[in-house]
């Protein structure tokens, strides 16, 4: 594969993985390739990243694809693994042959091809404490333990046998004892050491994963593995299918996101930032220049801040969505003085108090689930929740309020209380409903999407991108 083909294939794969790479940016990348040293792999990676990846959330996907298209090393076909002979594929991507034995041996470590597992674990322990040569070690370990036979003459590569054999997590206790060297446990020193070792364990996992993908790609082509190993960027992840780790990542994202959303709201209000002419002040100032108004003064514009009332379904079926929107509410609450939040399952409670400015978000979430009075029987009942809301907090909704309802409109076949919702929506300045389900699933089963959608405009909101687009319209 020529460099040009490789470039085109790579850019194509990036687009397929959801990164918006324009032709102009592709050309920039080519320009960049002409001025850098192509044998420096990290420079090459940085050059591609600088020209093609313009958003941090695209970076993990980019790195996976880069490692596939420009592998750090290529397997030696003569090493007796019985793979197909080199087809030119193996020529590309770097001269450095697998340095398996050398990487470990150079530092006085064991012979990676034959050493017993305890010895290898000793070596891994050194690496986790910060010794050099982790990538070479990871490659050698995949070579030794990562292969499982699959049918006749074929083989498959996996990470899990490698991790199971070496089990880096179980080294933690021993490493901690070594690092702390007799200092007391449980204190700051342990925290710091734990963090550092945990970080290195993740690096090792990544290195193993990268090498496994590289080997699979060598055997069955890059494209299939590329397609299956890149996850969509964070802001395109489906709220309802979000995993726990994603949620943690999302939580770190949510603050800048909310700030971004909030600043979008304020930007909208500040358009035409110069207010009316302040006539008196202008005339007074013109006295010093003989009545010629050299400088004009404007009255400051009165800031207009919308009040926001958020009504959020926090039942289990939309748990991750709810979790996310609650975080968002929390973040918005810090930006705006007038946000009131209500949570419901089958009855409703005001949850604004948990999100006081300055409160700790993790704690707020725990307290919320423990203390708030939102559940009677544990099954979502939109109708009852709406009635209760209108009854207890109806005065929260006024002509200045934007009412925001978040939920999947699945009411367990209970009466919908459309009329109550209509009254609430009528009292509010604007009312919106965000539904985390894809439009295709609306009205299936117990979903009342169309019925509610007829009263309050309903929008599909499944990921951060859609949410951001919505908030842009909100103002």
């Amino acid at each position, binding site marked *: 594969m020529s460099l040009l083909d490789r470039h085109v294939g790579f850019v194509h794969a990036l687009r397929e993985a959801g990164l*918006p790479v*324009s032709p*102009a*940016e592709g050309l*920039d990348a080519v*320009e*960049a390739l002409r*001025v*850098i*040293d192509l044998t*420096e792999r*990290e*420079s090459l*990676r*940085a*050059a591609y*990243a*600088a*020209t093609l*990846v*313009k958003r*941090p959330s695209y*970076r993990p996907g980019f790195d996976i694809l880069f490692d596939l298209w420009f592998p750090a090393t290529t397997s030696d076909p003569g090493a007796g693994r019985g793979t197909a002979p080199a087809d030119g594929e193996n020529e590309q991507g770097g001269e450095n042959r697998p340095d398996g034995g050398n990487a470990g041996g150079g530092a006085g470590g064991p012979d990676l091809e034959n050493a017993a597992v305890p010895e290898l674990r000793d070596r891994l322990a050194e690496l986790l404490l910060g010794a050099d040569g982790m990538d070479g070690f990871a490659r050698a370990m995949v070579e030794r333990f990562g292969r499982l036979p699959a049918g006749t003459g074929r083989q498959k590569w996996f990470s899990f046998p490698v991790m199971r054999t070496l089990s880096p997590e179980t080294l933690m206790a021993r490493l901690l004892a070594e690092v702390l060297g007799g200092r007391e446990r*449980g*204190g*700051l020193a342990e*925290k*710091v050491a734990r*963090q*550092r070792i945990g970080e290195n364990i993740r690096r090792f996992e990544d290195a193993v994963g990268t090498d496994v993908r590289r080997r699979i790609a060598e055997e069955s082509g890059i494209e299939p593995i590329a397609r299956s190993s890149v996850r969509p960027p964070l802001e395109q992840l489906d709220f309802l299918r979000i995993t726990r780790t994603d949620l943690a990542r999302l*939580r*770190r994202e949510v*603050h*800048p996101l909310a*700030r*971004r959303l909030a*600043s*979008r709201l304020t*930007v909208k209000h*500040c*358009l035409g*930032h110069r207010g009316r002419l302040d006539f008196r002040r202008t005339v007074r100032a013109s006295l010093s220049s003989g009545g*010629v108004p*050299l400088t004009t003064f404007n009255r400051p514009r009165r800031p207009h801040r919308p009040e926001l009332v958020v009504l959020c379904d926090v039942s289990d079926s939309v748990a991750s969505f709810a979790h996310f929107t609650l975080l968002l509410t929390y973040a918005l609450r810090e930006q705006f003085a007038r946000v009131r939040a209500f949570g419901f399952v089958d009855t409703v409670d005001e949850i604004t108090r948990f999100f006081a400015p*300055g*409160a*700790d*978000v*993790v704690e707020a979430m725990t307290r919320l689930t423990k203390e708030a009075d939102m559940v009677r029987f544990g099954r979502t009942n939109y109708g009852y929740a709406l009635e209760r809301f209108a009854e207890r907090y109806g005065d929260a909704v006024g002509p200045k309020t934007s009412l925001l309802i978040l939920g999947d409109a699945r009411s367990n076949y209970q009466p919908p209380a459309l009329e109550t919702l209509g009254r609430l929506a009528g009292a509010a300045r604007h009312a919106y409903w965000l539904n985390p389900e894809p439009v295709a699933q609306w009205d299936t089963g117990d979903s009342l999407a169309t019925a509610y959608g007829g009263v309050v405009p309903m929008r599909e909101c499944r990921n951060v991108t859609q949410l*951001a687009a919505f908030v842009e319209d909100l103002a």
Partner: protein
Amino acid sequence: MWFASPADVRERLGAVDYLSDDSIATSVFLAGALGKPLLAEGPAGVGKTQLAKAVATATGARLIRLQCYEGLDEARALYEWNYKKQLLRIQAGQGESWDATHDDIFTEEFLLERPLLAAIRSETPVVLLIDETDKADVEVEGLLLEILSDYQVTIPELGTIAAVRRPYVVLTSNATRELSEALKRRCLYLHLEYPTPERERDIVLARVPGIEADLAEQLARTVATMRSLELKKAPSVAETVDWANTLIALGRTELDEEAIGATLGVVLKHASDQTRARKELGL
């Protein structure tokens, strides 16, 4: 030519106490070699503005800075006619024909240069720093688009002014607002993250004279641990350096629980963050 290679960037920025890594060095080199603006984005305090300053110092170029803010307009960013002076000129030239006056009052003499125009017209090498681009209104981005793609400005009365030599442009952003796709497309993108503990240790060693390597190491590791907590405002590199200075000033050589407890306010600026850190780190 601004830099010869990424290695050259590393070395020359290192000489002015800015420690770069692979991606910083390559992006800074490419921005010079391709003549494209460099958009540096990332959390506050990771050294985005510092990067532009370091490039200017390392290359001996003049640094021109445009600080963006809400309400920044063309007159503040690009150029403005000095109309007070123009009025005086008109009054002084009474009896002159209108044509003569008209030609006279729209000349260089009455032009007030603002950062963007200054950068374009400069004869000497210039590093143009457009700081906190995300704070400016969307209209400013439109203005920047024109300047950053052609390096020229049109002033109706004077005609088009093209750059004598391309300035080295660095835009910074805290990503509080998504910049437009069009602007991003024209720029090289550098996402600056918090440095690795190793790099941060070296930064502290370079920036804080007289600090022990051991203390710098402990500092860098502790700050990395703090950043892994869910804080409202993670400590920035600048704050790590402040912290190092504080400890030196207090004559501490060891970073133990007690020393951290006493100086936590230097790195964590929210009460809730401090509470959280105390709890999580067992202070």
